[in-house]
């Protein structure tokens, strides 16, 4: 990986972090209607995975999908506009935080149903197979999804039909309040994929280079083997599940350990500094990203609200 790629990984992780911190700030000022699911702490997985893909590769995303969306190329302005219910938003204010789709960049959409996108990714991969393309579908889901029936039906069919799906489980260790260790019989998420004949690996999901390298390698393998593959990317969310979460199910020591010792941004900055990338270069990127966020928020706040069109008609194509 050259320096330019590394700086791009840094820039994207920072963009996701600052995007979501800006959302938090807007939420506390009462500017946002509804709840949201923040991925602060998990930026390395979204970044490493999406930046390893081609634009024509597809992704399916989750309720905690801001990072996936940005990393797949979405415009922060149009995302802010969506969360603010503006006409310029990706879904014209009909989807909000949990349902942003950005077809032009291959993002088939975030999904509010746990494991809801797994079977959709299988269908999208079938389209790619029928169209004889070389592209893949990367399907994001959380550790909570692996206990849903559709997870098993989707993996089984993808394996039987040799569909080009890269399943990537972002194991942030909690399904809302339920610890993954209390929810996954047999202990290993990655092993479940093996039982469907799908090659799998468990990686450090807070190491952006490890995620990037693994997804790159798996993507190439899928392109030649035409078989699905599976990554368990172990990470941690700092914020609550949603805005109602009081964090009663975990200790502040645990949260602080991940923030202090395992933070994906902090670790990567440390690594880049060790590799003699100048602090000035990183500062310059930080300033640019902050400026982008600031301008995007301002523009979104000034943009027109989504008009009250005939919503019943909008329900149908």
């Amino acid at each position: 990986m050259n320096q330019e790629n590394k700086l791009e990984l840094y820039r994207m992780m920072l963009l996701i972090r600052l995007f979501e911190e800006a959302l938090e700030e807007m939420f506390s000022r009462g500017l946002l209607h509804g709840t949201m699911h923040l991925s602060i702490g998990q930026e390395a997985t979204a970044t490493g995975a999406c930046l390893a893909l081609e634009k024509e590769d597809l992704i399916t995303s989750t309720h905690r999908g801001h990072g996936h969306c940005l990393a797949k190329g979405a415009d922060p302005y149009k995302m802010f506009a969506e969360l603010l219910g503006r006409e310029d938003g990706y879904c014209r204010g009909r989807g909000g935080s949990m349902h942003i789709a950005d077809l032009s960049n291959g993002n088939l959409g975030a999904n509010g149903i746990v494991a809801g996108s797994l079977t959709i990714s299988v269908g999208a991969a079938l389209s790619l197979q029928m169209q004889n393309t070389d592209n893949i579908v990367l399907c994001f889901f959380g550790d909570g999804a692996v206990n849903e029936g559709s997870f098993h039906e989707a993996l089984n069919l993808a394996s039987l039909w040799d569909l080009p799906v890269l399943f990537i489980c972002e194991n942030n260790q909690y399904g809302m309040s339920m610890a993954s260790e209390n929810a996954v019989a047999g202990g290993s998420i990655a092993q479940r994929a093996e039982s469907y004949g799908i090659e799998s690996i468990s990686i450090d999901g807070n190491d952006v280079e490890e995620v990037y390298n693994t997804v790159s390698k798996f993507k190439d393998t899928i392109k030649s083997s035409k078989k699905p593959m599976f990554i368990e990317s172990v990470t941690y969310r700092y914020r609550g599940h949603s805005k109602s979460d009081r964090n009663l199910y975990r200790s502040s020591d645990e949260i602080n350990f991940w923030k202090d010792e395992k933070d994906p941004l902090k670790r990567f900055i440390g690594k880049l500094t060790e590799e003699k990338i100048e602090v000035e270069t990183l500062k310059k990127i930080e300033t640019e990203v902050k400026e982008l966020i600031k301008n995007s928020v301002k523009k979104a706040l000034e943009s027109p609200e989504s008009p009250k069109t005939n919503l019943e008609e909008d329900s149908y194509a």
Partner: protein
Amino acid sequence: MPEMTTGQAIKEALSLCLDSNETTFMAGEDIGVYGGAFGVTDGLLEKYGEERIKDTPISEDVIAGLAVGAAITGSKPIVEMQFSDFIVNAMDPIVNQAAKLHFMYGGAVNVPMIVRGASGAGTGAAAQHSQSLESWFCHVPGLKVVTPSNPQNAYDLLLASFVDLNPIIFMEHKLIYKLKSDVNLGPMPNDSSALGKSKVVKEGSDITIASYSNMVNTVINATKDESLGDYSIEIIDLLTLSPLDSEKIIESVEKTKKLLVCQEAPASSSIGSTLISEVVSSRAFRVLTQAPEILAGLHSPMPSAKHLETTVIPQEEDIVKKIKEMMSYE
């Protein structure tokens, strides 16, 4: 015009769909070599190959979900629920995904897919293989629900569903599969305007009977009963349940002043109850000479034994009796 069964007419329509669009595929349980549990897809595997006629494991959730994923990425899937009762295992992809993605993503995607399912009772298949669940789907914005009653309208409506851009729930009553009639095998329509339209199958001026699916056939047969004498009975086949063409029923009731709805499904939260509510809250209310009535399946699971099954489902004699009762009241 060739004479054929509804099952054959549906197969002809499916063939035309597969011929007209190379992104079309079918997926479902035992639709390949077996030819489908009711023989509808018999021969399609030989004609189109396993790339397009895809036998699946018994996995209704992923059958419906893969249709959604394929539909939003340029394919045109037609998937089958072997018995429509099994659709309950596929509710998330249908209700939370297929029905909502177009709206939820601000119109950025369409979800053009068809879910076919064999519905209804009368075959002694008992409680888990005999239901008429169509009204569940009418409650969900974003879905269209189609219920043919004979070979010709099954052929026409399947083609109209195919050219529509929305997810379609296409419920085929098991008892219509073997009904036979001449079928005009017309070309692929240019648009889906045939959906959302009910049809007057027999004109009359004394009473309106609205029905759908196989119950339409029961109503038609019942009204041939000689004991009904000269009663002039108008029969309307709803054909599409969502969107529901209640305007045609309202117009008919303005003329006949009486409404009876006949359906196999239980009455509670059903098509019949919706239709009656729409009629009584319309301009037709003022001309009604009596309360509209609904003759529906009993509110019980479907029993297996023939004599009990016919107790649950309205029979011809029940319809004759109800018509006489309603006509005696002026």
